[in-house]
């Protein structure tokens, strides 16, 4: 019964009043009052500039904000646009629903997809409520390929500093590319566009109450699109927000990326097991731009956390990693700081063995993901060291080399997978 009633009657009533739309903008929120007002304003401006004739609605799925976020979202008036000489032909609805008393990204996304299912938009976009860099043009960049060219998923590319998004450049991008055969740079992003049919397919088929509790649902959505052979492209948006990440954020981030990716591998095995090599995704604008300015990173602390992890989690690693991989990790842990290097091949083997162990559930899956954290820090140390003086081209080459390593060693993952049986 709970399955049938996850949309409240009040939300259904609001959807009924909105009716069929051409564009749906999903805005998951939780205590975003500081930023969400300007984000909604920018979204409205993007609609008026790029889609003045289309029927549009902003759907705010709120995870129990206590700071007035939903009221702010629904209160931003389109009439405020007059100052910028923008005039709306149509009514632009902003409606809000509280899907839970605490934030769960998967539930927020599910609510947005359910709204899309009922309102039947041609194109949808999910936007981050805390983006400081959002521009009105982002709407067009994410929606036009769906509207005009029949794509089903538009993922963004950004201008980033070479040391930002290391989880993406060192794990998510190369592994996704190697396994699924498509070069999607940002398979996990808070902003993306998708077609109504893709949303409908995902809503109907996805297991929403699995053990991952919906972590990394955005990534799983991308993977589902690839696996389902939907048409996918990338669109360059511009600067990516500089969000300060604390060390404590790493484990949740790993759950949403590595955890979600690992969990997708079993259902998608028929897809990725037959893929060899990779193909570029159609891309509008640059597929990635790299900023090079100086950025202070505490590399020493990263190595210390790696060493501590190797020492403290040995028994855990024995369950997850092959003896040779663990031995090699223990060997590099004894190297001095100047000599320390976590090479690409070892990193790829580590990840593949984690993925296979995740599948075998050798220990609690969440513990497996948590155990990856110190190793990723060791890999970060090496990436930062290797690219300290690298140019943009040099950084890109190193990432490309890592991707090729993931592709080259894919048979290793397949062997591990078969040994499971």
């Amino acid at each position: 019964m709970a399955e049938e009633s996850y949309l409240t009657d009040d939300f259904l009533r609001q959807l009924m009043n909105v009716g069929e739309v051409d564009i749906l903008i999903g805005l998951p929120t939780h205590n975003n009052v500081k930023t969400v007002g300007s984000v909604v304003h920018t979204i409205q401006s993007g609609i008026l500039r790029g889609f003045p004739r289309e029927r549009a609605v902003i759907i705010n799925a709120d995870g129990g904000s206590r700071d007035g976020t939903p009221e702010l979202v629904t209160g931003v008036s389109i009439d405020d646009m007059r100052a910028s000489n923008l005039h709306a032909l149509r009514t632009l609805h902003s409606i809000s629903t509280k899907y839970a008393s605490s934030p769960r990204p998967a539930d927020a996304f599910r609510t947005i997809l359910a709204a899309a299912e009922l309102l039947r938009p041609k194109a949808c976009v999910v936007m981050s409520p805390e983006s400081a860099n959002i521009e009105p043009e982002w709407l067009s960049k994410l929606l036009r390929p769906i509207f005009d060219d029949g794509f089903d998923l538009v993922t963004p590319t950004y201008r980033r500093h070479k040391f930002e998004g290391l989880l993406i450049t060192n794990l998510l991008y190369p592994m996704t590319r190697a396994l699924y055969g498509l070069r999607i740079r940002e398979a996990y992003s808070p902003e993306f566009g998708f077609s109504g049919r893709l949303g409908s397919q995902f809503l109907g088929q996805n297991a929403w109450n699995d053990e991952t509790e919906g972590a990394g649902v955005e990534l799983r959505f991308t993977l589902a699109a690839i696996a389902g052979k939907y048409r996918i492209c990338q669109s360059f948006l511009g600067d990516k927000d500089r969000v300060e990440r604390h060390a404590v954020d790493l484990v949740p981030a790993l759950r949403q990326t590595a955890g979600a990716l690992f969990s997708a591998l079993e259902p998608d095995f028929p897809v990725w097991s037959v893929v060899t090599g990779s193909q570029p995704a159609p891309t509008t604008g640059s597929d990635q731009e790299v900023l090079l300015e100086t950025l202070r990173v505490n590399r020493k602390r990263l190595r210390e956390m790696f060493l501590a992890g190797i020492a403290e989690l040995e028994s855990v690693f024995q369950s997850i990693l092959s003896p040779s991989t663990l031995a090699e990790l223990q060997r590099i842990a004894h190297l001095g700081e100047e000599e320390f290097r976590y090479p690409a091949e070892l990193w790829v083997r580590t990840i593949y063995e984690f993925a296979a162990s995740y599948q075998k559930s050798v220990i609690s899956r969440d513990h497996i993901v948590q155990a990856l954290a110190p190793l990723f820090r060791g890999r970060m140390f090496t990436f930062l060291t290797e690219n300290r003086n690298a140019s943009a081209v040099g950084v890109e080459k190193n990432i490309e080399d890592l991707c090729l390593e993931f592709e080259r060693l894919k048979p290793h993952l397949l062997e591990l997978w078969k040994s499971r049986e």
Partner: protein
Amino acid sequence: MPLNRDVLWYKDATVYQAHVRTFHDSNGDGIGDFQGLEGKLDYLEKLGINAIWLMPFFPSPLRDDGYDIADYNAVHSSYGTLEDFRKFLGAAHDRGIRVIIELVLNHTSDQHPWFQESRSSQDNPRRDWYVWSDTDIRYKGARIIFLDTETSNWAWDPISKSFYWHRFFSHQPDLNYDNPAVREQMWNVMRFWLEMGVDAFRLDAVPYLVEREGTNCENLPETHDVLKELRRKLDEHFPGRMLLAEANQWPADLRPYFGDGDEFHMAFHFPLMPRMFMGLKLEDRKPITEILQQTPEIPPSCQWSLFLRNHDELTLEMVTDMERDYMYDMYAGTKTMRLNLGIRRRLAPLLDNDRRRIELMNGMLMSLPGTPIIYYGDEIGMGDNINLGDRNGVRTPMQWNGGWNGGFSAAAPERLFAPLIEDPVYGYPAVNVLRQKASEHSLLNWMQSIITVRKSTAVFGRGSIEFLYPVNHRILAYVRRLDNEVVLVVNNLSSSAQAVELDLRRYKGNILIEMFGRNIFPRVGDLPYLLTMGPYQFYWFRLRRI
């Protein structure tokens, strides 16, 4: 039926706009005339209209369909005589139908004797009746209205070797209202027709009467002074007669034309009309509520005049560029449908001949605040002919039956002033009065019915309006109220069925009586009032506390 003696008669009127030339030809010369029009008054009476607005019928070279007048005090010979007009006027009054005629104040034809005298020499006594100049650089701030045909507001007169001012076609020189003799003469023209019994004037192109350097020469205080002077004389000598302004302006700029109830009685609400079409196509009430929110209050004795279509193009002057582009794309797919800043099409073709949309638009026309005007032929869903030049495509002969010349004229078809519509969908064999009279559910009979319902209460003509804003933007809902009479109007602008919840708590305890079928709907309670509506459906409910 005797004429209603109420001096505010125009507030309760339903006006029918017709052209003598296009309505009915009594003498078989291919051109409609006053005797023909008089012969069709029974039809108009049965339709339920109680005022008829006639386009110019004065002697004219007809280079602008009669808006180029060559003699203000006579009838064009093609349409009959002054005596024919008198007879028609009396017959209309006998049926309770008032007659509104055109008065083109701003300009005359260049064939008018006044202009011929004025141009004849620099020292002619009538030289100063028009606006002359040695150069064509004066009044540079004035826009050119007929962009498709004119490049300047000045035209060179080779006879008097100077330039004359014209805001419209170059064959329509503007009169000089700074000259007291001109003002006096135009009052004499008005008095001539008023004494005959004419009930009202539609004053054409009134914003442009006076020119001043450094302005856009529109809506100037001096222009209002001229109009107020005419109104004062009208009230003094002919109380109960009415002036209707044609001023294609934004509502805020139109407001001064009502003055303090001492200038015009009525004015066309030009910006509303395109927004009704826009709202229908967008399936969104926003354009309509937005423009009505911007519409200022007018004096109690004044009234807006509303219309869906008329003899001109569907004007898009009073919309934004984005809105105009949208309207062109939605309603004028081919360039030949466009003229100046507008769309030269009739109501039925604009609405794809969709009966539901035609009814909805007429429903709004009849229930929004103002006096509705029905353009001849739209009551039967006549089509247009975009292959005819200028605006002539919407001025084709009235289609009375499926016989010879559609019953319009006994002349040989090639002698008709304009060809009848003959295409399979809109042609006179398919769309005509006789056929629709015979069909209970025809558009004609439906129009007759809605006019009857509208006339059953004064609330539509005189009541206040309060918009309800249900969250469903496809629904345009409003409450009209006059004293204790309350009418709720709900329009579904959408092509699909809609549910809507209306906040009617202030009317708790009232029952709703649907005004067309007189059926009773549930009593209003504390909860939002739920209505489900079919595509393009509308309801008029009388609220009664019983």
